[in-house]
């Protein structure tokens, strides 16, 4: 039936119009907002998408497209077209269900159905949508054509890049120019070109200049650092195309000279390539592996480089043996990592000292050696690992001679270790009860030993280590019949009387602390022995013994035996005191001042200050300016960023008749910095001119 089709067609058309409008508005808005944000805040492209989705949702919220159905269309038609006599709803009904009157009405209104301009304002809706789209597109085009705005300077890196945006003065003869910077291959950076004379390049980069002049040039020179002048040959016969290239190794500045006309000075900055930096996280710089500890170390290091790490390995040196028979073996240990020019690397290496062939008493020195892809080498600090030698501890060498303060105690600790080892060896043969008793006995021995050591530190009871006197309870000592004014009694309160003075001041503080550490180890060994764990007690006992050995060694100084040959004495000259054949040494020296440069710069500083009023320089003064120029050039070669402006201004001063205040200030500042601060020098003061009166006065003062 035609009526229903008509309504459906109308519905589809309505939805389409709204859809087109919605898409246009959303797209237009997205482009507008996106381009503005992109320009001002440097936001990425996702902003377009986000804005589009957001605006589309908002549009759909106000115009719910899915809610448009046939009844809606019918209502619309009835509202807007009176000729349909509120009967459009009949069109939706099937012809079978219509009464006679209804079908009459349908046949009446069917021809009346509007053919054109059905949806009022559809044109306007589309126009709004299209308008939004046009605005969006134009804003996008506009903002993309304006060169991107730089962000406000916040970090030093950005500050440096802002240098590139400084306006450079280009000679009018130069029509076009490009600089191509080709970084060295190892940096794996691609070559880049720029339309700027300021060069910032990696060390060793090749820079190519291509210039086109608007007329043929007779002589084209490039001057580097104001010292090196290169003559260029034209690329083409008509002398308008010029090219030259140079490898950049140092910073400095350069200048173009076209037919005698010199350009501005352009600075050359370099990006240095630093060697690999190595940071070892584990182990500590000095590691001692005690008895009972696993003889292995885990090495972990972080390596960083500017462009890539080419190689890294551990260079290890093992020292074994004692005294004169020390032997060194060197080994190169490789990391299980692939070096593929990474910039950052975390390297781990498990080193088994036994596999390296290390025995107790040996020491291992190692460092990490790394190479970057330029070939620069670097190495870390030297780390060392030592394995404690138990045999050495057991030896009696060094105990038989010299001052021996505490020999028997050392022996005792050694004895405890030996007994404990023996006990462990016999463990299988012994009954559990016997084993426990012997272990406990050893613990008692250890305790006695500890207590005896404790005496050295003034310990008085067995629970304390190192004898902390301050915790003493003085309240219990109070005398019942203390007399008022008894000096001795008051002094007793604050003094330690139960201490033997000799013992308390027996050792230096450093030795005392080490003794305390010994007691600590003994305490742990005792604990394990008493709880029938002689195996666990052994490491502590060994450590205690090692510390005791150290203590013993500390109290000795060792002087090697050497052979000395002295000149033979003349017996007849001895003790005569004759010096007549010896002449007085005399010296006459005049200090030569090699460079007068600073003095000249000081004069120049005055000169610049005196010309602030715009007075022109005389010929003599210009000669002084020339001297200053040499100094500023020297400074500019090493620091182009700070002195190049001064050099430009100084040249301007040389050429202009009337010096500009701005140039004078820039040059003054540079020269002021070059002169620098000088150290104090002695200098006489001056008196008043009236000699007689002051003489009289001062001499009169002397009398008092």
């Amino acid at each position, binding site marked *: 039936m035609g009526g229903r089709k008509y309504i459906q067609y109308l519905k589809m058309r309505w939805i389409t119009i709204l859809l087109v409008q919605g898409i246009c508005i959303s797209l237009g808005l997205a482009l507008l907002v996106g381009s503005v944000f992109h320009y001002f805040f440097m936001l990425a492209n996702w902003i377009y998408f986000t804005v589009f989705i957001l605006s589309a949702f908002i549009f759909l919220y106000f115009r719910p497209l899915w809610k448009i159905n046939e009844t809606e269309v019918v209502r619309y038609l009835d509202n807007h077209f009176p000729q349909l006599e509120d009967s459009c709803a009949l069109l939706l009904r099937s012809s079978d269900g219509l009464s006679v009157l209804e079908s009459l009405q349908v046949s009446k209104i069917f021809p009346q159905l509007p053919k054109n301009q059905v949806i009022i304002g559809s044109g306007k809706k589309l126009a709004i949508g299209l308008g939004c789209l046009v605005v969006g597109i134009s804003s996008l085009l506009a903002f993309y054509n304006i060169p991107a705005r730089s962000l406000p300077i916040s970090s030093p890196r950005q500050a440096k890049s802002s240098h590139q945006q400084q306006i450079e003065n280009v000679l009018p003869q130069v029509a076009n120019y490009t600089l191509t910077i080709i970084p060295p291959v190892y940096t794996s950076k691609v070559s880049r070109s720029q339309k700027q004379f300021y060069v910032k390049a990696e060390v060793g980069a090749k820079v190519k200049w291509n210039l086109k002049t608007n007329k043929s040039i007779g002589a084209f020179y490039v001057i580097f650092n104001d010292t090196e002048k290169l003559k260029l040959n034209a690329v083409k016969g008509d002398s308008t195309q010029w090219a030259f290239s140079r490898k950049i190794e140092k910073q400095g500045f350069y200048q173009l000279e076209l037919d005698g006309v010199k350009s501005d000075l352009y600075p050359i900055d370099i990006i240095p390539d630093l060697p690999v930096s190595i940071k070892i996280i584990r182990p500590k710089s000095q590691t001692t592996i005690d008895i009972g500890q696993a003889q292995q170390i885990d090495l972990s290091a972080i390596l960083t480089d500017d462009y890539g790490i080419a190689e890294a390995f551990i260079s290890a040196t093992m020292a074994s043996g004692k005294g004169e028979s020390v032997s060194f073996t060197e080994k190169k240990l490789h990391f299980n990592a692939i070096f593929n020019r990474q910039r950052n690397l975390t390297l781990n290496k498990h080193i088994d000292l036994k596999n390296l062939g290390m025995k107790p008493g040996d020491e291992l020195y190692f460092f990490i050696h790394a190479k970057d892809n330029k070939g620069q080498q670097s190495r870390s600090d030297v780390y060392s690992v030592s394995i404690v030698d138990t045999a050495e501890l057991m030896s009696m060498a060094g105990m038989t001679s010299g001052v021996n303060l505490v020999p028997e105690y050392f022996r005792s600790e050694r004895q405890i270790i030996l007994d404990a080892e023996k006990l462990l060896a016999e463990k299988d043969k012994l009954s559990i009860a016997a084993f426990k008793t012997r272990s406990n006995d050893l613990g008692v021995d250890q305790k006695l030993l500890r207590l005896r050591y404790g005496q050295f530190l003034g310990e008085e009871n067995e629970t304390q280590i190192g004898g902390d006197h301050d915790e003493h309870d003085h309240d219990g000592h109070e005398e019942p019949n203390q007399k008022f004014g008894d000096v001795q009694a008051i002094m007793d309160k604050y003094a330690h009387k139960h201490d033997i003075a000799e013992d308390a001041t027996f050792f230096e503080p450093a030795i005392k602390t080490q003794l305390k550490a010994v007691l600590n180890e003994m305490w742990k060994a005792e604990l394990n022995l008493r709880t029938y764990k002689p195996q666990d007690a052994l490491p502590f006992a060994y450590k205690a013994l090692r510390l005791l050995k150290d203590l013993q060694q500390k109290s000795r100084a060792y002087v090697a035996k050497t052979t000395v040959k002295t000149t033979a004495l003349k017996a007849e000259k001895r003790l005569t005191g004759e010096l007549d054949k010896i002449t*007085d040494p005399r010296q*006459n*020296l005049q200090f030569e001042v090699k460079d007068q440069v600073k003095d000249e710069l000081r004069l120049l500083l005055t000169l610049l*200050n005196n010309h602030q009023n715009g007075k022109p320089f005389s010929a003599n003064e210009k000669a002084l300016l020339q001297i200053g120029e040499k100094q500023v050039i020297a400074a500019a070669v090493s620091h182009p960023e700070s002195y190049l402006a001064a050099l430009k201004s100084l040249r301007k001063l040389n050429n202009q008749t009337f010096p500009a205040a701005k140039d004078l*200030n820039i040059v003054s500042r540079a020269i002021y910095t070059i002169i620098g601060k000088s150290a104090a020098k002695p*200098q*006489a003061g001056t008196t008043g001119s009236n000699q007689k009166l002051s003489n009289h006065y001062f*001499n009169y003062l002397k009398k008092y």
Partner: protein
Amino acid sequence: MEFNIWVIVICSPLLAFLIYQETKRKNRHWLVWRLVASVILVLCLTFMAIPITLSTKKQQKKGTLNLLTNGFIKDSLAAIKDHPYYTDPSLHRNLRQKATFIPDLAYYLLDHPDIKKIKIYGNGLGQDDLRKLKNLQLTFYPAEKPQGIVACNWNGRLKEEETLNVQGTYNNLLSTAIQLKLIGFGSSLDSIKIPAHSLEKFDLKHQVRQKGKALLQLVALHGKDTLAKETIPVQTFPKTPLNLLMLTSFPGFEYKFLKNWLYENQYPLALRSQISKNKYSIDFLNRKGMKLDQIRSTILEKEDVLLLDQQTLESLSSTEKQAITQAVTKGLGLVIWADHTTSADPLLKKFKLNQPLKEEKSLDLSLFNSQSKLSSLAINQAIYIGNLPDQQELINHKQQQIISAQQLYGRGKIIVTTLQSSYQWLLSGHQKDYASYWSELINAAARKQNPSLLFQTNNAFPSVAQQLTFTIEMPTAAIPTVKYDQKHLAVKQHLLFPNRWQAQSWPLSTGWNVLNIDRFNIDFFVFGKEDWKSINAIETIQNNIKYSKTNPTNTQNGQEISNTIKKELSIWWFLIAFILSAGFLWLENRIYAQN
């Protein structure tokens, strides 16, 4: 007068023409009023061109003159009962209607002999004007202390590499802090912040790096606004070399390093160091050789500083000691290294040498005069110097114990130092501290040099076209020839000091000026009239206070007299009347033309 005639000649035909037009007009409505309006119109026009003065009578206390000067407060004008006057033409703008201008005060006073009393408001009158007020009673109502630099001084005549000190006071009346900067050579040399609402002292320092004359700037900045910009003229003179003689009883690091340091800084130095009995090692650095086996007064006369160690001093013969004592009396500086506490020598006995109560592992020295700290030395100091009333400390340890002290002895000075290893500074790379330490000692000791000529301007800020008095001190009493700007100046001898002379002149140009005294050329700087305004204001106020104190006020009140005062009528009244009458004529025509 001619101008007035021209105005009348132009205006009267205009009036006649207007009246003629009015009478000839067809519309006779309000004719009389229109005629009146036309007359007023032309009259107003005339009086706008020719100012009209009215004579008014005013009651005034007899014999009192109220003078307003620069710096008076506008609001207080109403509080002044009698009619005020002013003499400064720069006040025209503010006081045109309110007070009467007196072009010449002296002339006016002659004209009005009845004036016996003068009241001055503001900063006061200049020195020249004050002189004209002889025999008059003066009451001064001073203005407030002005905003800006109210006091300033600096050592403008320096030796090379010396430190310039700009000191003064700043009066900040603003509600925000301001920054005071010393600017020169395109860079900021030193700066200080002056807090809001405060009278703050400032001290700006700068080690001069130029050779010769230079102009620095003292700038007061309030945010980005410049409140004041004053010129600080500075000139440097070459250093004069010091002759040094060093006698030591054995060669040591301390002496060797000092010798090298002095040698490299180009000081003429003679060093005699005993190496064995009657055997000496002798160095002459940057100077000619001479005989040094015996220390005689002829040798010492030419030296500026003599450096000795304690052993040498004690082993000298009595004649040598005598020569040294006499030379010191005449101005030689004596520096002694003391290394033990007991000494029989009378010169060293003056100092109280003590051993420290407590041993310290490091020395933290500071210079007493400049309060600047030196980097610490890891040495154990064995001797300190005790405090005595006639001695002054030079170097101290932790600002308590004295390491070096000085004492006057005749014209010269004796300096004792107990530091034996100052070379440790050089070894640890603190060259500056070593230089500061030895400069302090040698500066104190060095024989004072007699200037060939001393020059001073009596005014701290010589200003252009203002009287300037110079004081010149010559080595002898001979009359100096003083020339300024190609002209000879007359000199006046001081009553007490025959070598002191005075001369007067009026500088004609700002900037550096040259004065020739005998064969010397002396540069001095002349400021512009606008420079140092706040300081000039303060000075004027003080001069006026001083003057008013020396001329005490008489409390008797004179009887009132009436004074005729001419007063100019403001042209604004005429302008209003002119507009009103013209408006009336136009409006009347507009409304009644159709009728």
